Every structure is written in structure tokens, then in C-alpha cells.
């Protein structure tokens, strides 16, 4: 057992927690504004895919990362338009985006690279292995500050709790909600990009493997607060890191070990969802009487 608890484990916990944290913080901006963002999975996928493809063509991972952010914002904009302007069911819109983005990268990589869902190998960039980690963890205090110490954060929270009251106070509910959802697209896409061009050197089909949903669980477990959400992400990261290290060490079929992070997600959600108090207006489109 001792060989499991070492510096390597800490390092890999942080590494696995990073994409979760980016997506979860993204989700936080959207959900604190009152828009459920179950599309995190799809947003991560579009980030991962775009980063890999653009890096492949431009040979610059930085352009790849920028393109991933742009793509994430674009897809998030679809969610925003549907949920905010057209008052669609937020879970339905999110699921539609997820399904779309499981299919589209496979289709496109088939067309571009004649593969069944993967992109070609791209050279690993040293800095990109660390930069997103730093960004993710630096974003925790930044998000806290934005949320509790800026007018934007106050409005964001207000709009997620009681949009009518925010409206009466002269705040544009639509504008703030758009901002929240678009931000979530950008952050989740960085999380995805880190998976494809930071941690590995190509995009593979469905490479997020449910991390968007785990991020969502971390957000709920973290009560929609930045620091708690980070801790939740670290817990899930630890579970995954442990699972990875146990493979080959513990004599259990590998599938049982891989299942650990997902089982943990279910336990956490089943046990804690009732304890955390969601933003009160979450999931409800704001319908202003005219």
C-alpha cells in the first residue's frame, strides 16, 4: 500500500483534477447565474477536439488553445440562445449539445484524417502540460473574488437567486446570464484542450469519458462555491489517480478499478445533493411579463 502514497500520487491527483476543475468553475459561472449547464461534457469535447485539430494544422498549441476557447464559447452560445432567449428546457438543450459533440468530432476526423474519431499525433508542448494546471488553480481565488467582490459577481448571484428582484433593481438578467454561460464555455473548453494537447498528444473519440458530468457533480458537491468545488475536484482527481495507480498493483480486474471515480460520483450525488442548496432560480427561464 505504501507505494501508492507518494509524490507521484499527489502530482497525478492534481493533474487529473485540473480538467475537472476548469469545467466545474465554468459550470459555476453558468449555474450561479441560474442556467443549468449539463453541456459541460460537450463543451469539454469541443475544446479537446478543436485544440488537437488546430494544433495539428498550425503547429502552435497556443493557437490551438485559443481556437478551443473560441469553439467552446460558440457552442455555449447555442446553449445560451436556446435557454435564455428561447427559454428552452435547459437540461434538454444541454443533453442535445452533449450528444451532438460526441458525434461531430468523430465525423469530422473521419473526413479530415480518414480515422474513426481520432486526430493524428501532435508533438507534446512542454509548457502546455503545466500552464492549464496553474490557470485552473489560480482561477479558484479569482472566481471567489469575482463572485463576492465585484459588481458582476453580485449581479450573477442575484440573477441566479431571484431574477425578478435583479430585474427590478435595474440589472439585465439576459445579459448577465449570457455572460455566465459563455464563460462556462470558455473554461470547459480549456479543460478539454488540456486533455488533448496537454495530457496527451491527440484527440481520441469521446476522450472526456464523462468528466464533464463528474465536474458537474463536483460543482454540486462543492455547493456551487469555488473553494469547495476545488476540493471536490481534488477528491475526484484522487479517486481517479488512485484507480490508475492501483492498476497492476492490486489483483482486481482493471474494470473494477476504473469504475471507482464514477461510483464515487454516484455516492456523492446521492448522499449530498439534498444537503447543498442550489441557486434558487436554477433551471427556470426568466419570463418577463410585457
Amino acid at each position: 500500500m505504501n507505494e501508492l502514497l507518494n509524490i507521484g500520487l499527489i502530482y497525478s491527483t492534481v493533474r487529473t483534477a485540473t480538467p475537472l476543475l476548469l469545467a466545474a468553475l465554468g459550470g459555476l459561472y453558468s449555474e450561479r447565474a441560474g442556467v443549468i449547464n449539463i453541456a459541460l461534457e460537450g463543451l469539454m469535447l469541443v475544446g479537446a477536439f478543436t485544440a488537437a485539430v488546430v494544433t495539428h494544422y498550425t503547429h502552435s498549441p497556443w493557437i490551438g488553445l485559443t481556437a478551443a476557447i473560441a469553439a467552446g464559447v460558440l457552442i455555449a452560445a447555442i446553449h445560451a440562445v436556446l435557454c435564455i432567449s428561447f427559454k428552452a428546457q435547459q437540461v434538454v438543450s444541454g443533453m442535445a449539445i452533449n450528444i451532438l459533440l460526441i458525434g461531430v468530432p468523430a465525423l469530422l476526423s473521419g473526413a479530415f484524417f480518414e480515422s474513426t474519431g481520432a486526430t493524428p499525433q501532435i508533438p507534446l508542448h512542454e509548457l502546455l502540460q503545466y500552464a492549464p494546471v496553474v490557470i485552473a488553480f489560480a482561477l479558484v481565488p479569482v472566481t471567489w473574488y469575482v463572485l463576492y467582490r465585484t459588481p458582476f459577481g453580485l449581479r450573477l448571484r442575484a440573477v441566479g437567486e431571484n431574477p425578478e428582484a435583479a430585474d427590478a433593481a435595474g440589472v439585465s438578467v439576459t445579459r448577465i446570464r449570457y455572460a455566465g454561460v459563455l464563460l462556462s464555455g470558455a473554461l470547459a473548453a480549456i479543460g478539454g484542450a488540456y486533455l488533448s494537447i496537454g495530457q496527451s498528444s491527440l484527440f481520441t473519440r469521446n476522450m472526456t469519458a464523462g468528466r464533464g458530468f463528474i465536474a458537474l457533480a463536483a460543482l454540486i458537491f462543492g455547493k456551487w462555491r469555488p473553494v469547495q468545488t476545488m476540493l471536490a475536484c481534488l477528491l475526484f482527481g484522487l479517486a481517479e489517480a488512485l484507480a490508475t495507480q492501483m492498476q497492476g498493483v492490486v489483483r482486481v480486474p482493471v474494470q473494477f478499478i476504473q469504475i471507482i471515480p464514477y461510483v464515487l460520483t454516484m455516492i456523492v450525488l446521492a448522499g449530498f445533493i439534498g444537503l447543498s442548496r442550489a441557486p434558487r432560480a436554477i433551471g427556470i427561464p426568466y419570463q418577463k411579463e410585457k
Partner: protein
Amino acid sequence: MLELRNITKRFGAVLANDHVNIKVKSGTIHAIVGENGAGKSTAMRIAYGFYTADEGEIIVDGQPRRIETPHDAIALGIGMVHQHFMLIEPMTVTENIVLGAEPGGAVALDLTKAAERIRKLSEEFRLAIDPHATIEHLSVGQQQRVELLKALYREAQLLILDEPTAVLAPQEVEELFAILRRMRAQGKTVVIITHKLDEVLAISDEVTVMRDGRVVGELQTSATNAAELARMMVGRDVLLRIEKPQAKPDSTVLSVEHLTVTARDGTQRLKGVSFQVRAAEIVGIAGVEGNGQTELIEALAGLIPHAQMSGRMEYLGRDIAPLDARSRRELGIAHIPEDRHRRGLLLDFDLKENSVLGVHYRPPVAVSLGSVLLDDGAIRKRTERIIEDFDVRPANPDLPARSLSGGNQQKLIIGREFVLQPKLLLVAQPTRGVDIGAIEFIHRKLVRLRDEGCAVLLVSAELEEVTALADRLLIIHDGEIVGEVDPTIATLEEIGLLMTGGKEQ
């Protein structure tokens, strides 16, 4: 200061405001009265930019202005305290007040400075609000003062209050009026919507009377009286005090003995209450809200878990304590709940569906194969009957309950319970937020039901109401019945003393 000119506003087929003209003079307190659904809130929401008018002009300080969002109104110095408060519960007073007009730059929210200013304002107007308190920990009256502070903080010159007194205890009403007078003394202008004519006479300088979406009168308060205002509002003479024949009580219908209710947190809400209600009498329960009335009614209606109660409840000689709400209703116990939104209606369901709640599973509403299907025709007929007998407006069974004004929602609930032809009626706050025309109507219906032999247990926070309706009046204080008085003899002072815990001589 503010002038609405020819404002017209439609909601679908409903003409909520029909060429409304209201002129509010600077430095005055201006009251707006009218029946439920007369269009008072609509007119003021238009002035505040919450709704946009279909036609008409808004003039502020002599200039025509476009007010399309609350933001525009705020910029013009208009503030509004809504019928339902616009506060964000988990946030602090300061956060709520600065929202939308935050001090400091885009990256730094300066709450310390804001809190200081709020504290000063609160002192100046004697509001006694702590800027750092969280809204959900404040009483309703305090929350209302936070709303006032919000307007003051933004230096509103005109303050609109929509039924501010409906949720306040008499003492708090006095305090609110003192604040409004201080504001007027500072040159600010106040518009107040209320159903209570004595309040209009006490606080306002001028009154606008609305009926059916139109302005039907503009008066100097000093030159009018309650009877005249009531007549203008309703379009006919209104009895401000119910006339009822002497009760002829019959045999005992409900007998309660040593009833206690313990809340989940362990506190005793009812501490051994005993009383009886006979057929053909109205027994009133008077008390300051929160002294166990709610629990008493809910315990009798079957809405409190058996395990939280002890004591006996006998209805027509039968112990009903073990029965659930449905079985009690089947035995002829009807219930008009105090909170019509929480217990009374499904707001997004239409009037038809709301009219059959509680009988939806049995004939004539549910039919065939052991009552598994709803009979739409029968439901519609039943609803139309309620709408007609109880004057529910608009008279359209297909509207969602939400689109009715509060008074009409209440009439629908009362109608639904009355058609059950109950032998015992439990009724709480039957006229809260209801206009005087409808109050008179509801009171008459209650007396009629009594005369038909129904036993009525009435709880109301309005002393005038219980004393006028009840044949016997019990006073409840801190979960105990502290006295019984004859409402035709007892004075309001005597009753008030008992209500606040002073014992009967």
C-alpha cells in the same frame, strides 16, 4: 411629479388599464384604491418600467419620458416597493441595496462604504436596519424597510408602494406611516396602493379611485370619507359592517379537547386547547399571528402528522384524529386555507382543475370503471357554477389560476369549498388582500352558510372581521385559549389586551 396620460394596457383579452390618467403632485402622499383586478398594480408597474404600456404617455417632472425597464425608472428617481418583495434572501441588506447601482469600479465592489451610507440613511429615517443582516433572518416588516432603503439609497424622489400594509401588524403600519410622513417632510413624493380605506384617510393627501381598469375618481382626502370611496370603488353602496341575524346554534358538531401540537423542532405550538363549535354558529379565533391559529386549523383539517398531536378531536361524535385529510373531507369538513398559494391552488392549473381539487377522484367529477376518468363536461359545469355563484372574474374556466387577482383566487377557493355543502367549515384569513366589495360578499356568504346549519370555525388576523362575524369569540395567545368573549359586547381594547397576553379579569 409623475403623470400617467391615457395609459392603456392589455393582457391578452383582459383590458387591465383603459386610458388611465393619474396625476401625482410633488411632495404629496397619493393613494390609489380600487377593487381586486381594477388595474392599480398594472398602472404602477408601467410607471416603474416593469410592464410597457400599449398606449399612452408617462410624464416625469413635466417632460414626456420613455420608461421601458426599471433601470430607466430608477434613473428618473422613481422607486417601487412591490406587493411581493424583490429581495434576494441569502444575501445581506447591503448587497441587496447596492445591486444594480454598485459603488466602486467594475473590479472592486466597495461594500464598506455602501454599508456606512445605508446605516446613516437608516438612522435618518429611523428604520433600525442593520446593513450586514441577511435578508432571510429579517421579519416581514424589516424586509419592507429594506425595500424602502433601497429606494432611498438611490435617491428616489418618488416612491411607489404596492399594498405595503397587507403584510404588517397594526403596530408596524403605524411605524411605516411615520416613515412615509418623514419622507414627505423631506419633499419626496409617495404613491401608496391599499385596500384599507381607514389607511387612505389617515395617510394620504389625494386619492385616485380605479374600477375595471379605469380611473373613476380623483379626490382630496380631506374632502371625502370611507363610504364615498367605497361607493366609487364598487359602483354601489357597500356595507362596511356586516349585518347578521342572531345565531340559533344547534347540537355540537366539533369538540376539541386538550389538543396539543408539537412542531418538528420540539416547540409546543398548541398547549392543550379545548372548545366546541355547534351547528349554525360561527366561532371566531382572534389572536396575533403565530400564536397557534395556523396549527389549530391544520390539525383539524388533517394536515399535521398524527404523531405531532395529542388530545381529542370529535366531529359529530366520532374521533377524527386518526383520519387523513381526504377522509375528513368526505365526512363533510371543508377547509379554506390561510395561504391560498401554498395550500389553496395550483397556480398554473386552470380554474376547472382547481375547482375540482379534492373531489377529483370521485363522482360526478371522475367517472366510469371505478372513477378512473375525468368527466370534462361535469367539471366545466361545476366550475361555471362556482364562477357564477361566487362572482369570479374574469369568468373563464380555462384561465390559469395565476392570472386571477388575489381576491378572485380567494373567491374561487371559497366557492370550491362551499359547493361541498360542508357540515363544518374551517376558514382562515378569508379576506386577506381582498377588496371591500369582495369582503362584503364573502362575509355574506359565510353568514348564509351558517344560517343553513353549518358549523364555522373562523380564524382571522383582522379584529374587525372576527368581531363582526363571530357569534362567539375565543382569544388565543401562545398556543392557549386565554378567554372567550361575546363579540357584541366586548371592546376592541379588551380583546387586544387578551391577545397580547393580558389575562381576562
